[in-house]
């Protein structure tokens, strides 16, 4: 696959970030606020909880992981929404650019912003609140990878929804992580959830990551098969989201929605 058209999408995002501090600031600001807030909460909890239990790797680590996933998802959708806001679809899709190249460009664009956000959180959490990533051992890398893949999948899916239902449906994008969070077992084990919520939780790759994170921090065993399941689910969701985006684009070309997208909302 020629890379130059994907590179063009990445270059556009780079120009947007380079020329606009208001786009750069949120990459750092929200995650920094979250880490500071939860850092103080964990510090306080450590003072009132029974000695020996450290909330930092459990709570602050969970916040860091969840924020990373959220940043990845929003990174993809933000890159897509830039084209919605600037009414750029006709210029893009009347060019030789394929959907695979376009989505690939969105994903690559979000890698840079997600890594910047992650670095900000890591620096703050380790220096200000003493979070040690050695607590997670070698599993840190696959944990982050699973969250990254699931963030990509949800970002592509949310972008497809906006393409399908028009610019007015943008509001759907932002609360998706919040909607998933009760099911994702970020701060509590899946077993805490009511029975009807647990099957939903097991369909979400982050649940396996957070269960694993808690198991490792508490010195328990973590099954490699659980990690494989979460990676499989994340990869499956990327395939499904890409299929859905392609299907929505095909529908938009067939019905004339894409040609009219510049002029109107279809919601």
């Amino acid at each position: 696959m020629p890379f130059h058209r994907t590179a063009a999408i990445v270059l556009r995002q780079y120009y947007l970030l380079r020329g606009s501090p208001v786009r750069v600031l949120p990459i750092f600001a929200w995650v920094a606020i979250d880490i500071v807030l939860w850092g103080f909460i964990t510090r306080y909890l450590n003072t009132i909880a029974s000695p020996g239990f450290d909330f930092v790797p459990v709570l602050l680590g969970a916040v860091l992981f969840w924020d990373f996933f959220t940043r990845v998802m929003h990174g993809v959708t933000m890159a897509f929404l830039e084209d919605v806001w600037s009414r750029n679809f006709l210029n893009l899709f009347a060019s030789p650019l394929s959907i695979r190249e376009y989505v690939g460009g969105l994903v690559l664009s979000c890698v840079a912003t997600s890594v910047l956000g992650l670095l900000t959180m890591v620096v703050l959490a380790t220096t200000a609140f003493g979070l040690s990533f050695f607590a997670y051992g070698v599993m840190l890398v696959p944990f982050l990878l699973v969250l990254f893949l699931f963030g990509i999948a949800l970002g592509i899916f949310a972008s497809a929804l906006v393409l399908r239902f028009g610019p007015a449906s943008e509001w759907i994008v932002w609360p998706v992580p919040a909607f998933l969070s009760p099911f994702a077992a970020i701060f509590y084990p899946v077993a805490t959830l009511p029975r009807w919520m647990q099957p939903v939780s097991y369909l979400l790759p982050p649940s396996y990551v957070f269960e694993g994170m808690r198991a490792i921090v508490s010195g328990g065993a973590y099954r490699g098969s659980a990690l494989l399941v979460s990676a499989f689910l994340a990869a499956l969701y990327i395939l499904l989201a890409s299929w859905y985006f392609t299907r929505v684009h095909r529908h938009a070309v067939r019905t004339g929605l894409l040609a009219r997208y510049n002029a109107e909302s279809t919601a």
Partner: protein
Amino acid sequence: MIPKVLSVDRLRRLYGDTVAVDGVSFEVGQGEIVGLLGPNGAGKTTTINMILGVLEATSGTIRIEGADIATSRSRALERTNFAAVYAPLPGNLTVYQNLRVFGLMYRVENIPARIDALLDQFDLKGLRHVKCGVLSSGEQTRVGLAKAMINRPRLLLLDEPTASLDPSAARDIRTQVREFVSRDKVGALWTTHNMYEVADVCDRVLFLSRGRILLDGDPGSLPREHGKESLEELFIAVAREPLTLKRT
């Protein structure tokens, strides 16, 4: 015989029961500017959208230098480009940045040199680092035309390219497009409601009415052939009394 850049064959587009384009067939040859004329809603933009691959035809075929838009989309669109007032370049990038992005998109060799040449050609040098969103409509049109020519397309689609330009700027643009088409043996499809422009720039015109090609011919002789004084009169007749005109 002039080699064909664009071949449209029995193109049809339905929206539910409404026929927007009804069995349209035409060709555009190398070095030829074809005017696509007709009243609002005649099917001009729908036809252009299908040629650009952003709207699927209900039936019929479109070939750009032999590449079928339905089956070889990327190959067909690599040698095509367009400018339209309703598709401005993103306002949050500068003129240079937009041209650089689309230069990369169309795999242009030596992009900086090509951009310099286009900025010079369209008198945009002073606006190189200005964001497109703050340009006047005339300047935006010129940037859009620079983007449309960045890949030296074999087929150029221009949907009312001079609609927001003053007469002097419009004449300059017509001259530049004419030179580009003639020098690079490009085929161009040009829609406009300005009949003076049609007479000035088009080698051939297609009059569309209710999705069908009603007339096809030389803009210089077509009015007389249909008992009209001018292209404008002919246009009005097509818009108001299409049934009184013979279909080609």
